[in-house]
């Protein structure tokens, strides 16, 4: 019996492998399992390769997992296209369509022999029982439910809901295909302990959604009234959800003519007193650079979401990467500091999105919410969120007496000045991208410039003491440490657990506030640390570099970084930790590697 199972499936676009994954996940969620499902596609719009990884667990999990326990290949070309995204090893059970004519001992996998390889006449079964190739994914559902004891009843119920609308014939065909899959599994028992344990508790309140949906929903919760954006993969679904829902709350969604106009309109809406948001991905972020700087100097609240994908330039739109951190922090010209925060899961995207609005409104600043394709497009089971505990912050409006002699950019103790908006009598002022004095009048004076720079940056200092924006796990006196962020945090968290089980003394810091860098929190964290890993998915190891800017990292702390779409696996992290432990025992402190390795 297992508490945790990772299934990876690949086929061509028409095979419906992703929708099979979704059906299975939904059924499992109803049973009370926890699950994470990520999808990956080729570049084609239709008919290209597609895959999904579904991780099922009796306990909450944060990472999509590494090596597959079960691999399903509807055809081998498509499966192999995903390379290291669908890693198979000696413990994997491989299920594939026998029409591929591949012998179980001749699988085209590079240098691995899986535990079991089972050819199944998937296509044939679908044709036979449902009369169409379209039911191949239903056969697969039957196989999985059968072999691994996965929510048979609920899967069937799901099939009935889904195909019920499509007419009697389709429904019956799929029911038969499912049954045939179950039967095949029963008839060909697998001699391995891969059966899932029962869920701990049936959780009726569980939600099922992806990171983009969570982000959009959280924005509505946080009081967002205006969205201006432009479609771009993999962030477009934020706009899609808002285009359906935000209007219902009196808000407005503007699909602008480009990213500049999208953020421009959002800045306008913010100036007019509303909570405003824009969302995009790398190329769009590059275009928004100028207006982000405008929001900084004009001190206008704004949430800007960047769902990271492979870069540079158009790069790889459909794959996840964490290589926009430098840009998020440093892309503005001039001394512009803006908060950058990143969620670590779909679940966490709720809090982080609300936080982005809260910080934006409280500090009158653009906030970059740095998600990534992995989080944004993966589906997670999320336990019900008690929104009563989630605080929503609104901007500080001027009081009546402040309006009597209103000074928009007054240099206050906190650096935050009460902000008016059109419609407020007495609050009239000039907002501008030009440097201005406290009243808002344009100036070219150096001393005023220095004072305003100081004010705009000082107001963000309280963020550096927000310990709630950091997660610390593990042995607090450990000599070994990890830092990771965004979707990679889940991998690190799991590696932590495994390493500790293996007896290593190790801890983990997950910063959700990436900028400004909280020197104090890192200093405390690293005080007794001798060696460690900064784990992230970018070629340059961008977080590692950013931390070095502000924190004196212990010499043995290294970067474990890799280009996007080349996963960093839990196993690998654990073995790196093992090596570091050995090094430390032998009194060797590893050298950090030079740049541009």
């Amino acid at each position, binding site marked *: 019996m297992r508490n945790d199972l990772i299934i990876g499936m690949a086929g061509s676009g028409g095979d419906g492998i992703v929708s099979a994954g979704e059906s299975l996940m*939904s059924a499992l969620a*109803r049973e009370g399992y926890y699950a994470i499902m990520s999808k990956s596609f080729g570049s084609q719009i239709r008919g290209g390769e597609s895959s999904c990884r579904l991780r099922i667990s009796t306990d909450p999990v944060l990472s999509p997992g590494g090596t597959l326990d079960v691999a399903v290949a509807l055809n081998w070309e498509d499966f192999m296209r995903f390379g290291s995204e669908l890693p198979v090893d000696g413990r994997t059970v491989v299920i594939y369509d026998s029409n591929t004519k591949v012998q179980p001992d001749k699988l085209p996998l590079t240098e691995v022999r899986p535990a079991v390889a089972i050819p199944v006449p998937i296509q044939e079964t679908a044709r036979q029982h449902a009369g169409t190739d379209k039911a191949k994914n239903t056969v697969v559902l039957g196989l999985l439910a059968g072999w691994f004891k996965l929510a048979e009843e609920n899967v069937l119920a799901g099939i009935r*809901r889904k195909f019920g609308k499509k007419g009697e014939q389709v429904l019956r065909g799929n029911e038969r295909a499912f049954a045939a899959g179950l039967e095949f599994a029963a008839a060909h028992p697998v001699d391995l302990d891969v059966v899932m344990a029962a869920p701990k508790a049936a959780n009726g309140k569980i*939600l*099922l959604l992806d990171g983009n949906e969570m982000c959009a*929903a959280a924005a*509505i*919760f946080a009081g967002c*009234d*205006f969205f*201006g954006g432009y479609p771009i993969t993999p962030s477009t679904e934020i706009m899609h959800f808002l285009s359906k*829902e935000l*209007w*219902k*709350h*009196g808000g*407005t969604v*503007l699909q*602008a*003519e*480009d990213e*500049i*106009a*999208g953020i*421009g*309109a*959002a*800045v*306008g*809406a*913010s*100036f*007019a*007193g*509303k909570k*405003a948001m824009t969302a995009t991905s790398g190329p769009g972020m590059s275009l928004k650079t*100028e*207006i982000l700087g*405008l929001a900084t100097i*004009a001190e206008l609240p704004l949430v800007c979401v960047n769902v990271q994908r492979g870069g540079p330039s158009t790069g790889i739109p459909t794959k996840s990467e964490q290589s926009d951190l430098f840009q998020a922090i440093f892309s503005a010209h001039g001394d512009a500091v803006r908060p950058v925060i990143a969620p670590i899961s779909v679940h966490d995207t*709720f809090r982080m999105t609300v936080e982005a609005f809260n910080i934006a409104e409280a500090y009158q600043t653009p906030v970059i919410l740095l998600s990534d394709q992995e989080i944004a497009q993966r589906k997670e089971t*999320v336990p*019900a*969120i008690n*929104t009563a505990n989630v605080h929503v912050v609104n901007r500080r409006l001027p009081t009546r007496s402040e309006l009597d002699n209103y000074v928009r950019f007054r240099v206050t103790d906190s650096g935050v000045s009460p902000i008016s*908006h*059109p*419609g407020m*009598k*007495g*609050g*009239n*002022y*000039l*907002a*501008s*991208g*030009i440097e201005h004095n406290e009243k808002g*009048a*344009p100036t070219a004076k150096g001393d005023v410039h220095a004072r305003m720079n100081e004010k705009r940056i000082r107001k963000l200092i309280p963020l550096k003491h927000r310990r709630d924006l950091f997660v610390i796990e593990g042995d607090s006196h450990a000599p070994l440490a990890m830092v990771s962020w965004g979707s990679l945090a889940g991998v690190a968290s799991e590696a932590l657990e495994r390493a500790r089980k293996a007896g290593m003394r190790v801890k983990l810091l997950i910063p959700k506030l990436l900028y400004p860098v909280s020197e104090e929190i890192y200093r405390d964290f690293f005080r007794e640390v001798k060696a460690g890993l900064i784990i992230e998915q970018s070629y340059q190891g961008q977080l590692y570099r950013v931390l070095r800017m502000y924190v004196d990292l212990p010499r043995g702390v290294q970067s474990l970084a890799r280009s996007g779409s080349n996963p960093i696996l839990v196993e690998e992290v654990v073995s790196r930790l093992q090596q570091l432990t050995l090094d430390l025992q032998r009194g060797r402190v590893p050298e950090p590697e030079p740049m541009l390795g």
Partner: protein
Amino acid sequence: MSIVAEHEYQAKDYKSDLKPIWCPSCGDFGVVSAIYKALARIGRPPHEIAFVSGIGCSSRIPGYTTAYGFNSVHGRALPIAQGIKLANPDLLVLVAGGDGDGFSIGGGHVPHAIRRNLDLTYILMDNQIYGLTKGQLSPTSPRGLKTGSSFHGSLEEPVNPLLYVLSYGAGFVAQGTPADMSGLADVIEEGIRYPGFAFINVQSPCVTYGQEEQQLRVHKQKMQSLKDLAHDTTDRLKAMALAQEYGIKLYTGVFYRNPEPAATFETAVRELHDRLVPEARLRVDILDTFRPQ
């Protein structure tokens, strides 16, 4: 926008304390005066007005008014103004800027603002030059013009702002010049009162880097009132034909005014809200959307 004057306002009520730093005799002085006048006639209190501009000499104009001003970045006044108007449709939203701001770097935003048809009034100070950056080609500069950036003369045909906005479908299109202050104030007022996107091209001379022919006294000689020509302002094709003479003749007054103004974007939004808001769940319950089925 329905306009109800609260109480009597005078031009000076719209004039701010900021002293304009334009060159003495710059055409923009006349433009801002005409705006004060038009606003006084409209009578909306300054705090209910949002006045957006980009960057340029002309874009300094919001700071010289008592409205809520936004002197933003080069070329982006229209997107920002649309955000403001959508966030609060009750505001009177004005947009102003230069020919470069509007039709060079900002040119991509104009058709979209117009096809959305928000109730904005866009006042372009067209001096056929880049004033603030000290004299380079603007998109409306005539072919052959020698400037800092075209030492041997420009090789390009100018854009035609009037013809462009007409082909984009603008409901109100007019032209003015500070050489005719009362006519200018009139078209600005009319533009503001027009319920939809209104475009007003103002021939506003740059006395420092502009050309001789674009000085006020030349305007005075060559301007030609469309009213005097008995131009039918409801005839869009006729307006386009007249607009073709941009750069040759200086017509003042209204080129086109849609006799049946189309519904604005804000109106469509209001209708959508009226339809959808009543049936919505509460914001705090938004996550319920994601209960698995």
